[in-house]
């Protein structure tokens, strides 16, 4: 397998603010690569640099062997971009939009018409092709938005949150289109989302992005395996570090740590009654069921009060929570 994309220490600063803080990864031809991260993680900024929309502040990247800053035109011939925001001419018909976006890649005449027919079929909009885009539903607009990035048959397609604000029916259409493109045409795809279900369904490998950095990058299987036998979050009152040591020595418990207090806990309440403060403890288990039984026993033995209990499912959402202590979406 050849490498289609290679990014090395990409940095983007907006003034003093670093939106992307040295991102490196590489991607094989034919791969569907997920970028999973919460709002403001820097996914769009990263994609903008890779597609030549933004100049990187530092770092470099190659696509199909071409340097993105030094050989932008060669790079741009290989790639397609489906921007996060709708990027269409609302008063023009779907077909006119696709004709135009195809034509800027040098397509014309019969071959252009053929490709436009083809992508209209992929996004299942052939019957509405002559209607103005502004008359479409949100989901249909999204589908045209995707189609516009496909007309020139890019080798590498960047899809930036293609399913935002989309009804389930359109969402399924989009998933099918992405899979079809990848399996039947061999298109490599970078898929950005903050829905872990989408990424789990579509992607071979996933980079989890937070605050401008890739904090984990692997296949979904390996990422989920990071949770090991499972992760349990438990909120306990009157907990202290001595108890933490004892807890971490329980059978089937691999490690235990106190998570920093969440923002919403009110400091003045804590000050008045410190003994009632809740500690949030993260337990990484070798085996979650066994660890849970031991945990209940432990709580009983020390006469602790449970404030909350959560067993993390083995999915990317949990991986994200596990890695950052934050939820992917609020």
């Amino acid at each position, binding site marked *: 397998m050849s490498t289609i994309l290679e990014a090395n220490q990409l940095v983007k600063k907006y003034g003093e603010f670093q939106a992307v803080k040295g991102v490196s990864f590489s991607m094989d031809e034919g791969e569907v690569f997920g970028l999973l991260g919460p709002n403001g993680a820097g996914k769009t900024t990263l994609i903008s640099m890779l597609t030549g929309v933004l100049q990187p502040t530092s770092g470099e990247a190659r696509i199909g062997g071409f340097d993105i800053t030094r050989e932008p035109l060669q790079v741009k011939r290989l790639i397609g971009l489906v921007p996060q925001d709708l990027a*269409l001419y609302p008063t023009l018909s779907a077909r006119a939009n696709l004709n135009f976006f195809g034509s800027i890649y*040098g397509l014309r005449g019969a071959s252009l018409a053929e490709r436009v027919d083809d992508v209209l079929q992929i996004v299942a909009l052939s019957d509405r092709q002559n209607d103005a885009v502004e008359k479409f539903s949100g989901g249909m607009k999204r589908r045209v938005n995707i189609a516009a990035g496909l007309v020139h048959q890019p080798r590498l397609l960047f899809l930036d949150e293609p399913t935002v604000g989309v009804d389930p029916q359109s969402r399924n259409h989009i998933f099918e289109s992405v899979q079809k493109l990848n399996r039947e045409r061999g298109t490599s795809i970078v898929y950005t989302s903050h829905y872990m279900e989408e990424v789990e369904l579509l992607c071979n490998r996933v980079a989890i992005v937070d605050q401008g950095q890739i904090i984990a990058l692997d296949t979904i299987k390996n990422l989920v395996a990071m949770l090991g036998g499972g992760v349990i979050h438990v909120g306990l009152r009157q907990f202290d570090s001595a108890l933490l040591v004892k807890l971490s020595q329980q059978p089937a418990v691999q490690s235990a740590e106190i998570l920093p207090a969440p923002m919403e806990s009110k400091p003045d309440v804590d000050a008045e009654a410190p003994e009632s403060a809740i500690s949030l403890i993260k337990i990484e288990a070798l085996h979650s069921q066994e660890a849970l039984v031991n945990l209940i026993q432990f709580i009983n033995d020390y006469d602790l009060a449970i404030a909350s209990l959560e067993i993390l499912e083995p999915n990317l959402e949990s991986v994200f929570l596990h890695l950052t202590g934050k939820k992917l979406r609020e």
Partner: protein
Amino acid sequence: MNIWNFIKKDWAIFFKDRGAVLWLFILPLIFIIIFSGLARLSMGDAGASSSEEKDDRAPIAVVNLDPQGAIARQFVQDLDRQPAFRVQLYEQEAAEESLRKVKIARYLLIPVDFSSRLAQGQAVTLTIVVHPDADASTTQTVMRLVNGVANDISLELQILDGIRQMGEMQANNPAVQSSFNAERIMQQAKEQFERSRLTPLISINERAPQTAEKEREPLLDLSQSFVPGFCVLFVFLSASTVARSLLEERKSGALRRLVAAPITRAALLASKMAPVFLLTLVQIAFIFLVGATLLPVLGFGSLSIGQSPLAWVLTSIVIALCSTCLGILIAGLVRTEGQVSGLSSALLWVAGFLGGAIFPPFIIQRMPVLNVLSRLVPQSYATTAYYDVLTRGKDLLDIWPNLLILLAFSALFFFVGTSRFKFE
């Protein structure tokens, strides 16, 4: 990538926008008609001088300094008999005064010794005194007709003179009587005719009035006055069409898609300029077509493109280019679309006013402060170039400095605009 795809796309978007079409084509028309009407009301008939060409009996002012002379009287009568003219006799002072107040655009001056010199077969010169802002093509027409009448008279005089000479010779020498047959007379007449063609007895020259430059009021020549100005005004207003279409493209995100396509940014901006540039040329052609066809039907003077079509075409192209580049500058300077329709449109109107696009440039340039300010806006050079070409009969050799300045403005606008424009 092919620029035609951009043009087709932007035109498709443009023509779906009724308001934009109205703005580009209908509004200039309404302005021209309303202003021409208002001007005509306020100036009475005097302003309608450009209709001289059309009117069968247009008045021509004549100052006859030789009122007793028989030939001068006959000349005036002959002139009056021309289907195109109705002679209005003036005293010289009154004529100068009328010229100064722009009640007339030109007058014909017959010198004191007109009859006496001609009677002796000596050459004389007629003078046409022309207001500097008078329509050059009308002046040409007047000159031609006066010339025609003068030629007839001088031919007549020369033939009569020839016959008189022959009569005298015959009286002195009866021996040659037999030779004065019809054939000989015809021959003589023919020779005289040839001579009068080659060395006409009556010549015509053209000069400006004697009044000092400052006292003179500029000539307001309805359509010729308003159409070029409004053309410039509205062409420059289309700068905001460029800016708006660029900002809209950025706002919709389509620009991001285009930036990710294999097109350089300069080419991208040029592709955004081309559709409006071409549309502006169509707009200019439309305004002039209406000026030439519809205005006469409505009773206003017709609009001509002047003596030099090349100068008119080049001026139009340079003006359209300058306005499109101004659009790029606006797009580079403002942040939102709202600012384009608000602030920058208002500024374009002000610049249009300063540049003599609403009131002709020679009016603006007579006011000290406005005169200085007007030099800062490209519209001034555009209107001046148009007026020179359209109403003063000037050609490329006369107006090229203005075109050069407009090109310099265009380059400046494009450079600053492209370096300031944010594609994100």
